[in-house]
C-alpha cells in the first residue's frame, strides 16, 4: 500500500513538473500569438514563412492560432474591446476596430518602403483622423467577381457572354444553360451585403450622399435589389443559398459550385486556390469580367490585413515580424503560393511568379487584374469606410426578408435605412 502511495505521489509530481520543464526554454524567447483564419492554403504557407522567421530570430516564437472565420468576425471584437486581444490577428473588417490597432511606425526599419508600396491600402486600416501611420499589412487584396462553370456552357452549346455583358445578359445565359442541362442553380451570389454592393454600384448605387454621409438606399441599389428579388422568384437564383439561413449570417455557395450545381457563382478572387483543390479536374472553371450596368462594370475591392493590437507587450518584435513579412521576397512568395492578388505596388509592376500551372488559374488571375482596373471609385470609397458593415448587414437581412415573403421590397428598403441609422447612432456617428 505504502509503495502504491509513494509511486502515485511521485507520478503526480512528475506530471506537474513536466509542463514547467517544457515551458522553461520558451520563457527565454518572446512569444507572439496570431489569431488567423484561412480560406484555403494561406495558413500553411504562413506557418512555413514563420518557421523561417523563427530560425533567423531564435529569440522570437510565433504561435499561429488557426480559428474559423466566424471567430474573427464575432468573437475577436469582444476580446479586443475587453483588452484581451491577441498580439496580432488577420482581419477582414479592416477599419471597424482600427482604434485598437498598434501604430507600427516606430518599430519599422524603413517606413518609406511601406508608404511607397502600400500607399493605396494603408488608409483602410488607419483609425479615424489618422493620415500617416502604418497600422497593418494587407495579407491579401481581393476583388468580388463571378466565377463560371465553363464546362456547363460548352455542354449546353451556349456561348459565354462577353466582357461587356450586363447582369441581365448573364442571368439569361445562365438560366438557359441550367434549363438545358437540368442544373439546380443558374446564379448563386454569396449571402453578403459586400457581394451585392459591386453589382449595385454598376447599376448606379452611390452608398454616400453628395456631402459624404452614408446613404444606403438609392435608385441604383433599388434596381439591383429588385433584380435579385426577381431572380429568386423566377428561378435564376435558388433560395437554397439566401433562404437557407436567417439574420446576418454569411452563406457561401462554394460547395454547390464545386459540386457542379452552379452555372455562375458571384463570389471573389479568394476562391481560386480553393477551387483548384476542390474542383480539380472535375470541370473547367474560371473567373470572368464583372458584369456591367449603366454606371460601371464594378465589383468590390476588399481583403484581409494582419494587424497588431495596442495591448501587446511586444511591439518591437511585432515590428520585426511585420518587416519580414512585408519584405519583397517573402511577400511575393506568400502571394505566389496562395494565388492571392497583391496590394504591393512594386510587385504589381514586377509581376508575381504565381504557382499557376493550370489554365483556369491564369485566366482567372487575368480577369481579376482587369476587374481591379475597372473598379468604380464608389467601390473604393465604400471599402475605405470604416463602418461599411453597418450598411452591408441591413442590406442582407432586409433583402432576405423580402425574398422570404415576410415584407415587401419597399418595406425592406425603408427598414434598411432605419437599421443603418440605428447602427450609426449606436456607433456614435452624428
Amino acid at each position: 500500500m505504502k509503495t502504491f502511495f509513494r509511486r502515485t505521489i511521485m507520478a503526480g509530481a512528475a506530471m506537474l513538473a513536466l509542463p514547467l520543464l517544457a515551458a522553461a526554454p520558451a520563457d527565454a524567447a518572446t512569444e507572439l500569438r496570431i489569431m488567423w483564419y484561412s480560406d484555403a492554403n494561406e495558413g500553411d504557407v504562413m506557418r512555413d514563412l514563420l518557421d523561417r522567421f523563427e530560425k533567423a530570430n531564435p529569440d522570437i516564437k510565433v504561435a499561429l492560432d488557426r480559428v474559423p472565420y466566424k471567430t474573427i468576425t464575432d468573437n475577436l471584437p469582444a476580446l479586443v474591446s475587453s483588452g484581451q486581444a491577441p498580439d496580432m490577428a488577420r482581419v477582414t473588417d479592416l477599419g471597424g476596430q482600427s482604434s485598437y490597432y498598434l501604430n507600427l511606425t516606430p518599430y519599422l526599419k524603413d517606413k518609406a518602403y511601406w508608404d511607397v508600396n502600400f500607399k493605396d491600402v494603408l488608409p483602410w486600416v488607419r483609425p479615424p483622423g489618422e493620415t500617416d501611420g502604418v497600422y497593418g499589412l494587407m495579407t491579401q487584396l481581393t476583388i468580388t467577381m463571378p466565377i463560371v462553370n465553363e464546362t456547363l456552357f460548352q455542354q449546353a452549346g451556349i456561348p459565354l457572354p462577353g466582357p461587356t455583358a450586363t447582369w441581365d445578359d448573364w442571368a439569361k445565359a445562365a438560366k438557359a444553360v441550367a434549363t438545358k442541362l437540368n442544373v439546380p442553380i443558374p446564379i448563386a451570389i454569396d449571402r453578403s451585403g459586400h457581394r451585392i454592393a459591386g453589382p449595385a454600384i454598376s447599376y448606379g448605387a452611390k452608398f454616400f450622399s453628395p456631402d459624404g454621409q452614408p446613404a444606403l438606399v438609392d435608385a441604383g441599389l433599388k434596381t439591383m435589389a429588385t433584380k435579385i428579388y426577381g431572380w429568386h422568384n423566377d428561378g435564376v437564383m435558388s433560395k437554397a443559398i439566401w433562404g437557407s439561413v436567417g439574420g446576418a449570417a454569411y452563406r457561401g455557395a462554394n460547395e454547390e459550385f464545386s459540386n457542379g450545381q452552379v452555372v455562375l457563382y458571384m463570389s471573389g478572387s479568394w476562391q481560386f486556390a480553393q477551387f483548384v483543390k476542390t474542383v480539380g479536374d472535375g470541370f473547367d472553371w474560371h473567373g470572368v469580367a464583372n458584369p456591367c450596368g449603366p454606371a460601371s462594370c464594378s465589383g468590390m475591392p476588399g481583403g484581409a490585413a494582419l494587424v497588431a493590437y495596442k495591448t501587446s507587450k511586444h511591439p518591437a518584435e511585432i515590428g520585426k515580424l511585420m518587416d519580414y513579412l512585408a519584405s519583397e521576397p517573402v511577400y511575393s512568395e506568400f502571394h505566389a503560393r496562395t494565388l492571392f492578388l497583391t496590394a504591393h505596388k512594386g510587385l504589381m509592376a514586377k509581376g508575381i511568379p504565381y504557382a499557376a500551372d493550370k489554365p483556369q488559374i491564369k485566366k482567372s488571375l487575368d480577369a481579376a487584374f482587369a476587374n481591379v482596373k475597372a473598379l468604380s471609385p464608389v467601390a473604393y470609397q465604400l471599402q475605405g469606410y470604416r463602418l461599411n458593415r453597418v450598411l452591408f448587414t441591413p442590406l442582407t437581412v432586409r433583402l432576405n426578408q423580402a425574398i422570404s415573403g415576410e415584407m415587401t421590397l419597399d418595406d425592406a428598403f425603408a427598414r434598411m435605412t432605419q437599421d443603418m441609422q440605428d447602427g450609426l447612432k449606436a456607433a456614435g456617428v452624428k
Partner: protein
Amino acid sequence: MRAALARLIDWPFEALQRALGAARMPYVFVLPNLLVFGIFVVLPMLLNIWYATTSGVELMPEQRPFTGLANFSELLDCSNYLNVASCRQDRFWRAVDNTLWFVAFQVVTMVALSLITAVVLNRKMPLRGFFRAVFFYPVLLSPVVVALIWKWILQPDGVLNAILVANGGQRLPFLLDSDWSFTWTVVVSVWAHMGFYVLILLAGLQAIPPDLYEAAAMDGTPQWRVFWRITMPLLMPNMAVVLVLGLIRAVQAFDEIYVLTGGGPGTATQYIVQYIYETAFAGQVHIMGLAAAASMLVGGVLLVLTLLQLLASARAKQ
C-alpha cells in the same frame, strides 16, 4: 489511514470554529457555493441591468453613457402590438412572436409525448431497458451534433428528400419554406430533449405505490379512470417540474436551431435568444444595450410565467 486523513481535514475547521463560533459555521460551508453563484449569476445579472440602461458600443461598463429606460422604450415602441410591422424594432417582435408559437407547440408536444412514452416505458415489456436508453440517447448529444444530423436529413439534397425522390415523390423545401422550417425546429427540439423529461416522469411513475393500482384492479376500475384518478394526481409534482423546465428551455432555444436553420428562411425561425445574440454580437456595431434590455424583458416574462405555474401546481396539490 482514514483517521489520519480526517485529522488532516479537521484541523482547519476546528480552528475556524474556535475563531468564529459554532453558530457561524454554516455560513463557512455555504460560502464557496455563494461565491460561485455571486460571480457567475448575480454579478452578470447586475452587469446586464447596467448595460440595459446605458448606450454606445463600448464594452467596459464605466465607458457607457447612462440612458435610463431608453432601450426599453425603443423595444416597446409599437403603434399596434398585433402588427409586428408597426413596431420600431420589428425584428425583436418577430422573434417574440416566433418564440411564443414555438413555446406553445414545443412544450405541449413534448409534455404529451414524454408522458405517453414514460407510461409505456413503465410497463413490463421486453427490451424495456434498451428502449429507455434509446429515448434518452439524444439528450447525451451535443446540440451542434443534433443540428448537423438533422441538417443532413432535411437539406434540399438530404436523406429525406433522397428517399422521397427514390419513391417517385418530389423534393420538399424542409428548410427553405417558413412553415416547414418552423415545424422541423419543433420536431428536432422535442427529439433532442424529450428523453430528459421522460426520465423525470418515469421516476415519478415508479414512486407511485403499487398497492393503489392493486386496489383499483380489485375494484375493477377501468384503465382510463386509473390513469386520471391515480396516476395523474400523483404525478402532478413531476409534471409541474417538467412543465416549468420545458417552458424555460423552450424560451431559451438557440444552439441547435441556430445551427439547423440560422433563424431562416427570413426570420421564420429566429427566436428571442438569437435576436439577443445577433444584436449584441453579430453585427459590426454591437448594440449591447438593446440586447440587454431585451434579455431583461424576456427574463421578467419567464419569471412571471414560472411563478404562475408554481402557484397553479401548489393549488392543484392542495
